Protein backbone atom coordinates (compact mmCIF):
# COMPACT_ATOMS: atom_id res chain seq x y z
CA UNK A 1 0.00 0.00 0.00
CA UNK A 2 1.25 3.41 -0.87
CA UNK A 3 1.48 5.85 2.02
CA UNK A 4 0.10 9.24 1.17
CA UNK A 5 2.60 11.59 2.72
CA UNK A 6 0.60 14.68 1.81
CA UNK A 7 -3.08 13.88 2.40
CA UNK A 8 -4.24 17.50 2.07
CA UNK A 9 -2.66 17.86 -1.32
CA UNK A 10 -4.79 18.83 -4.31
CA UNK A 11 -3.27 15.86 -6.10
CA UNK A 12 -5.40 13.49 -4.05
CA UNK A 13 -7.49 11.10 -6.06
CA UNK A 14 -5.91 11.94 -9.38
CA UNK A 15 -3.44 9.12 -9.58
CA UNK A 16 -5.63 6.09 -9.68
CA UNK A 17 -4.29 4.99 -13.04
CA UNK A 18 -0.67 5.25 -12.06
CA UNK A 19 1.36 2.41 -10.69
CA UNK A 20 2.54 2.70 -7.10
CA UNK A 21 6.16 3.07 -8.12
CA UNK A 22 5.42 5.79 -10.66
CA UNK A 23 3.31 7.69 -8.18
CA UNK A 24 5.99 7.38 -5.56
CA UNK A 25 8.57 8.74 -7.97
CA UNK A 26 6.38 11.67 -9.02
CA UNK A 27 5.43 12.56 -5.47
CA UNK A 28 9.11 12.86 -4.71
CA UNK A 29 9.60 15.22 -7.64
CA UNK A 30 6.58 17.38 -6.89
CA UNK A 31 7.42 18.13 -3.30
CA UNK A 32 8.99 21.57 -2.85
CA UNK A 33 12.72 21.71 -2.56
CA UNK A 34 12.74 22.75 1.08
CA UNK A 35 10.33 20.02 2.15
CA UNK A 36 12.93 17.52 1.06
CA UNK A 37 15.64 19.07 3.20
CA UNK A 38 16.70 16.64 5.87
CA UNK A 39 19.21 17.10 8.66
CA UNK A 40 22.50 15.57 7.60
CA UNK A 41 22.60 13.61 10.84
CA UNK A 42 19.87 11.35 9.45
CA UNK A 43 21.98 10.35 6.46
CA UNK A 44 24.31 7.38 6.60
CA UNK A 45 27.80 8.35 7.73
CA UNK A 46 30.12 8.82 4.79
CA UNK A 47 33.60 10.20 5.09
CA UNK A 48 35.55 10.90 1.94
CA UNK A 49 39.31 10.54 2.01
CA UNK A 50 41.13 13.86 2.17
CA UNK A 51 42.94 12.94 -1.04
CA UNK A 52 39.59 12.70 -2.86
CA UNK A 53 38.63 16.15 -1.60
CA UNK A 54 42.03 17.42 -2.68
CA UNK A 55 41.52 15.94 -6.15
CA UNK A 56 38.04 17.45 -6.41
CA UNK A 57 39.52 20.80 -5.35
CA UNK A 58 42.10 20.53 -8.13
CA UNK A 59 45.01 20.12 -5.75
CA UNK A 60 45.89 16.55 -6.75
CA UNK A 61 46.00 14.81 -10.14
CA UNK A 62 43.46 12.07 -10.77
CA UNK A 63 46.22 9.47 -10.99
CA UNK A 64 47.02 10.08 -7.34
CA UNK A 65 43.57 8.96 -6.20
CA UNK A 66 42.59 6.46 -8.88
CA UNK A 67 44.00 3.53 -6.96
CA UNK A 68 43.15 1.48 -3.90
CA UNK A 69 40.06 2.27 -1.90
CA UNK A 70 39.51 5.68 -3.43
CA UNK A 71 39.17 4.38 -7.00
CA UNK A 72 35.45 3.83 -6.45
CA UNK A 73 35.02 7.39 -5.18
CA UNK A 74 36.79 8.72 -8.24
CA UNK A 75 34.43 6.83 -10.52
CA UNK A 76 31.43 8.17 -8.61
CA UNK A 77 32.58 11.79 -8.77
CA UNK A 78 33.50 11.54 -12.43
CA UNK A 79 29.91 10.45 -13.12
CA UNK A 80 28.52 13.27 -10.99
CA UNK A 81 30.79 15.82 -12.67
CA UNK A 82 29.61 14.68 -16.09
CA UNK A 83 26.07 15.50 -14.98
CA UNK A 84 27.17 18.83 -13.50
CA UNK A 85 28.59 19.76 -16.88
CA UNK A 86 25.06 20.17 -18.12
CA UNK A 87 24.17 22.59 -15.35
CA UNK A 88 27.30 24.58 -16.24
CA UNK A 89 26.02 25.05 -19.77
CA UNK A 90 22.58 26.36 -18.80
CA UNK A 91 21.83 29.83 -20.09
CA UNK A 92 19.28 32.44 -19.14
CA UNK A 93 16.13 32.08 -21.26
CA UNK A 94 16.12 34.76 -23.96
CA UNK A 95 12.93 36.47 -22.84
CA UNK A 96 14.30 37.25 -19.39
CA UNK A 97 16.49 40.17 -20.46
CA UNK A 98 13.56 41.91 -22.15
CA UNK A 99 11.38 41.25 -19.11
CA UNK A 100 13.94 42.82 -16.81
CA UNK A 101 14.42 45.85 -19.06
CA UNK A 102 10.68 46.47 -19.29
CA UNK A 103 10.32 46.18 -15.51
CA UNK A 104 13.07 48.72 -14.76
CA UNK A 105 12.01 52.16 -13.55
CA UNK A 106 11.98 54.71 -16.38
CA UNK A 107 14.01 57.27 -14.48
CA UNK A 108 17.73 57.06 -13.85
CA UNK A 109 18.84 55.54 -10.54
CA UNK A 110 19.12 58.06 -7.72
CA UNK A 111 22.67 59.29 -7.29
CA UNK A 112 23.68 59.58 -3.66
CA UNK A 113 26.14 62.44 -3.17
CA UNK A 114 28.21 62.47 0.02
CA UNK A 115 27.43 65.49 2.22
CA UNK A 116 30.88 67.01 1.71
CA UNK A 117 30.34 67.11 -2.03
CA UNK A 118 26.83 68.47 -1.91
CA UNK A 119 26.24 72.01 -3.06
CA UNK A 120 25.08 74.33 -0.30
CA UNK A 121 23.82 77.90 -0.47
CA UNK A 122 24.87 80.55 2.00
CA UNK A 123 22.10 83.02 2.78
CA UNK A 124 22.88 86.36 4.51
CA UNK A 125 21.27 84.99 7.66
CA UNK A 126 23.51 81.90 7.62
CA UNK A 127 26.58 84.06 7.03
CA UNK A 128 25.72 86.32 9.99
CA UNK A 129 25.07 83.30 12.24
CA UNK A 130 28.37 81.63 11.28
CA UNK A 131 30.28 84.89 11.77
CA UNK A 132 28.67 85.40 15.19
CA UNK A 133 29.52 81.84 16.20
CA UNK A 134 33.15 82.26 15.10
CA UNK A 135 33.50 85.55 16.99
CA UNK A 136 32.00 83.98 20.12
CA UNK A 137 34.40 81.07 19.86
CA UNK A 138 37.37 83.40 19.35
CA UNK A 139 36.39 85.52 22.39
CA UNK A 140 35.88 82.43 24.52
CA UNK A 141 39.26 81.03 23.49
CA UNK A 142 41.01 84.35 24.18
CA UNK A 143 39.41 84.65 27.62
CA UNK A 144 40.39 81.09 28.42
CA UNK A 145 44.00 81.72 27.40
CA UNK A 146 44.39 85.05 29.24
CA UNK A 147 42.71 84.06 32.48
CA UNK A 148 45.19 83.02 35.23
Amino acid at each position, binding site marked *: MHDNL*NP*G*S*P*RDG*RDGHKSGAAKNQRD*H*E*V*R*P*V*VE*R*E*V*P*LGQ*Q*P*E*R*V*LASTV*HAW*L*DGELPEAAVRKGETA*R*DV*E*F*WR*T*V*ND*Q*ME*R*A*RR*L*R*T*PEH*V*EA*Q*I*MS*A*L*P*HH*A*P*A*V*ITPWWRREFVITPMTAVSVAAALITLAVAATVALLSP
Partner: protein
Amino acid sequence: MTETDPRTADQGEDTDQLIIQRVLGGNRDAFRLLIGRYSDPLYRHALCMTGSPDVAEDILQLSFIKAYQHLAEVRGRFDAWVFRIVANGCKDWLKNIRRSHLSYEEDDQPSTYATPEEDLDRSELRTDLDGALAALPASLREAFIMKHVEGRSYEEMADLLGTTVGALKMRVHRAREALQALLEEKYA
Protein backbone atom coordinates in the same frame (compact mmCIF):
# COMPACT_ATOMS: atom_id res chain seq x y z
CA MET B 1 31.20 54.46 -33.03
CA THR B 2 29.49 56.51 -30.37
CA GLU B 3 30.28 56.28 -26.70
CA THR B 4 26.97 54.62 -25.94
CA ASP B 5 27.10 51.88 -28.57
CA PRO B 6 26.26 48.66 -26.73
CA ARG B 7 28.46 46.57 -29.05
CA THR B 8 31.53 48.35 -27.78
CA ALA B 9 30.82 47.13 -24.29
CA ASP B 10 29.98 43.65 -25.51
CA GLN B 11 33.45 43.42 -26.96
CA GLY B 12 34.82 44.02 -23.52
CA GLU B 13 36.10 47.51 -24.18
CA ASP B 14 34.01 49.12 -21.47
CA THR B 15 34.40 48.29 -17.86
CA ASP B 16 31.43 47.79 -15.60
CA GLN B 17 32.23 51.11 -13.94
CA LEU B 18 31.95 52.97 -17.25
CA ILE B 19 28.62 51.34 -17.95
CA ILE B 20 27.39 52.20 -14.46
CA GLN B 21 28.36 55.83 -15.02
CA ARG B 22 26.34 55.84 -18.23
CA VAL B 23 23.29 54.38 -16.52
CA LEU B 24 23.57 56.88 -13.68
CA GLY B 25 23.86 59.59 -16.30
CA GLY B 26 20.45 58.64 -17.67
CA ASN B 27 21.29 56.00 -20.29
CA ARG B 28 18.88 53.35 -19.04
CA ASP B 29 19.54 51.10 -22.03
CA ALA B 30 23.19 50.66 -21.05
CA PHE B 31 22.00 48.53 -18.13
CA ARG B 32 21.19 45.85 -20.71
CA LEU B 33 24.94 45.32 -21.10
CA LEU B 34 25.35 44.46 -17.45
CA ILE B 35 22.41 42.05 -17.64
CA GLY B 36 23.96 40.39 -20.68
CA ARG B 37 27.33 40.04 -19.02
CA TYR B 38 26.19 38.52 -15.75
CA SER B 39 22.76 36.95 -16.15
CA ASP B 40 23.94 33.44 -17.09
CA PRO B 41 26.00 32.62 -13.98
CA LEU B 42 23.41 34.32 -11.78
CA TYR B 43 20.58 32.37 -13.39
CA ARG B 44 22.48 29.10 -12.94
CA HIS B 45 23.00 29.90 -9.28
CA ALA B 46 19.33 30.71 -8.71
CA LEU B 47 18.20 27.65 -10.66
CA CYS B 48 20.43 25.23 -8.78
CA MET B 49 19.47 26.78 -5.44
CA THR B 50 15.70 26.76 -5.99
CA GLY B 51 15.27 23.91 -8.49
CA SER B 52 12.65 25.89 -10.38
CA PRO B 53 13.21 27.84 -13.63
CA ASP B 54 10.25 30.12 -12.91
CA VAL B 55 11.49 31.01 -9.47
CA ALA B 56 15.03 31.49 -10.80
CA GLU B 57 13.72 33.93 -13.43
CA ASP B 58 11.76 35.85 -10.81
CA ILE B 59 14.74 36.10 -8.49
CA LEU B 60 16.96 37.23 -11.36
CA GLN B 61 14.46 39.88 -12.42
CA LEU B 62 13.92 41.24 -8.92
CA SER B 63 17.66 41.25 -8.27
CA PHE B 64 18.49 43.25 -11.39
CA ILE B 65 15.72 45.73 -10.62
CA LYS B 66 17.12 46.15 -7.12
CA ALA B 67 20.60 46.51 -8.57
CA TYR B 68 19.37 49.24 -10.94
CA GLN B 69 17.64 51.16 -8.18
CA HIS B 70 20.72 51.06 -5.95
CA LEU B 71 23.34 51.34 -8.69
CA ALA B 72 24.84 54.47 -7.17
CA GLU B 73 25.76 52.45 -4.09
CA VAL B 74 28.05 50.01 -5.92
CA ARG B 75 31.48 49.98 -4.32
CA GLY B 76 34.02 47.62 -5.85
CA ARG B 77 33.05 44.90 -8.30
CA PHE B 78 29.55 45.03 -9.75
CA ASP B 79 29.44 41.29 -10.41
CA ALA B 80 30.22 40.46 -6.78
CA TRP B 81 27.66 42.99 -5.58
CA VAL B 82 24.87 41.70 -7.81
CA PHE B 83 25.78 38.09 -6.94
CA ARG B 84 25.16 38.85 -3.29
CA ILE B 85 21.74 40.29 -4.16
CA VAL B 86 20.82 37.10 -6.06
CA ALA B 87 22.25 34.78 -3.37
CA ASN B 88 20.26 36.59 -0.68
CA GLY B 89 17.17 36.43 -2.88
CA CYS B 90 17.55 32.65 -3.12
CA LYS B 91 18.01 32.26 0.63
CA ASP B 92 15.01 34.48 1.35
CA TRP B 93 12.88 32.45 -1.05
CA LEU B 94 13.92 29.20 0.62
CA LYS B 95 13.10 30.63 4.04
CA ASN B 96 9.73 32.00 2.93
CA ILE B 97 8.61 28.85 1.17
CA ARG B 98 9.43 26.82 4.25
CA ARG B 99 7.36 29.18 6.39
CA SER B 100 4.40 29.27 4.04
CA HIS B 101 4.13 25.45 3.68
CA LEU B 102 3.32 25.79 0.03
CA SER B 103 1.68 22.83 -1.63
CA TYR B 104 2.80 22.50 -5.21
CA GLU B 105 0.23 21.78 -7.86
CA GLU B 106 1.11 19.23 -10.51
CA ASP B 107 1.82 21.94 -13.06
CA ASP B 108 4.14 23.79 -10.71
CA GLN B 109 6.50 20.94 -10.11
CA PRO B 110 10.09 22.12 -10.12
CA SER B 111 12.04 21.25 -13.19
CA THR B 112 15.64 22.20 -13.74
CA TYR B 113 15.23 22.39 -17.49
CA ALA B 114 13.43 25.01 -19.45
CA THR B 115 12.19 23.09 -22.48
CA PRO B 116 10.23 19.85 -22.87
CA GLU B 117 13.03 18.42 -25.02
CA GLU B 118 15.48 18.96 -22.21
CA ASP B 119 13.07 17.40 -19.74
CA LEU B 120 12.74 14.30 -21.89
CA ASP B 121 16.47 14.03 -22.20
CA ARG B 122 16.96 14.22 -18.49
CA SER B 123 18.80 11.23 -17.11
CA GLU B 124 17.83 9.32 -14.02
CA LEU B 125 21.09 10.31 -12.37
CA ARG B 126 20.39 13.95 -13.09
CA THR B 127 17.01 13.62 -11.39
CA ASP B 128 18.51 11.84 -8.41
CA LEU B 129 21.29 14.40 -8.21
CA ASP B 130 18.79 17.27 -8.16
CA GLY B 131 16.86 15.48 -5.44
CA ALA B 132 19.99 14.90 -3.38
CA LEU B 133 21.09 18.53 -3.81
CA ALA B 134 17.66 19.68 -2.69
CA ALA B 135 18.01 17.55 0.43
CA LEU B 136 21.07 19.51 1.54
CA PRO B 137 20.73 22.45 3.91
CA ALA B 138 20.86 25.75 1.98
CA SER B 139 24.35 26.73 3.15
CA LEU B 140 25.88 23.42 2.00
CA ARG B 141 23.95 23.48 -1.26
CA GLU B 142 25.13 27.03 -1.94
CA ALA B 143 28.77 26.17 -1.27
CA PHE B 144 28.60 23.00 -3.40
CA ILE B 145 26.97 24.82 -6.32
CA MET B 146 29.48 27.66 -6.22
CA LYS B 147 32.35 25.18 -6.24
CA HIS B 148 31.13 22.45 -8.58
CA VAL B 149 28.72 24.21 -10.94
CA GLU B 150 30.09 27.75 -10.99
CA GLY B 151 33.71 26.63 -10.69
CA ARG B 152 34.71 29.35 -8.25
CA SER B 153 37.82 29.23 -6.09
CA TYR B 154 37.46 29.06 -2.33
CA GLU B 155 38.99 32.53 -2.08
CA GLU B 156 36.39 33.98 -4.44
CA MET B 157 33.61 32.19 -2.59
CA ALA B 158 34.86 33.57 0.71
CA ASP B 159 34.95 37.05 -0.75
CA LEU B 160 31.41 36.77 -2.10
CA LEU B 161 29.85 35.17 0.95
CA GLY B 162 31.80 37.11 3.56
CA THR B 163 33.13 34.06 5.32
CA THR B 164 36.43 32.21 5.62
CA VAL B 165 38.05 29.78 3.20
CA GLY B 166 38.21 27.16 5.95
CA ALA B 167 34.50 27.39 6.67
CA LEU B 168 33.67 27.07 2.99
CA LYS B 169 35.97 24.07 2.52
CA MET B 170 34.16 22.44 5.41
CA ARG B 171 30.76 23.16 3.83
CA VAL B 172 31.82 21.79 0.45
CA HIS B 173 33.33 18.69 2.03
CA ARG B 174 30.20 18.03 4.06
CA ALA B 175 28.05 18.56 0.99
CA ARG B 176 30.11 16.06 -1.03
CA GLU B 177 29.94 13.46 1.69
CA ALA B 178 26.20 13.92 2.12
CA LEU B 179 25.62 13.68 -1.64
CA GLN B 180 27.74 10.59 -1.95
CA ALA B 181 25.94 9.00 1.02
CA LEU B 182 22.61 9.72 -0.68
CA LEU B 183 23.59 8.54 -4.14
CA GLU B 184 26.35 5.99 -3.94
CA GLU B 185 24.19 2.99 -3.13
CA LYS B 186 22.66 3.39 -6.55
CA TYR B 187 25.56 4.78 -8.58
CA ALA B 188 28.91 3.95 -7.02
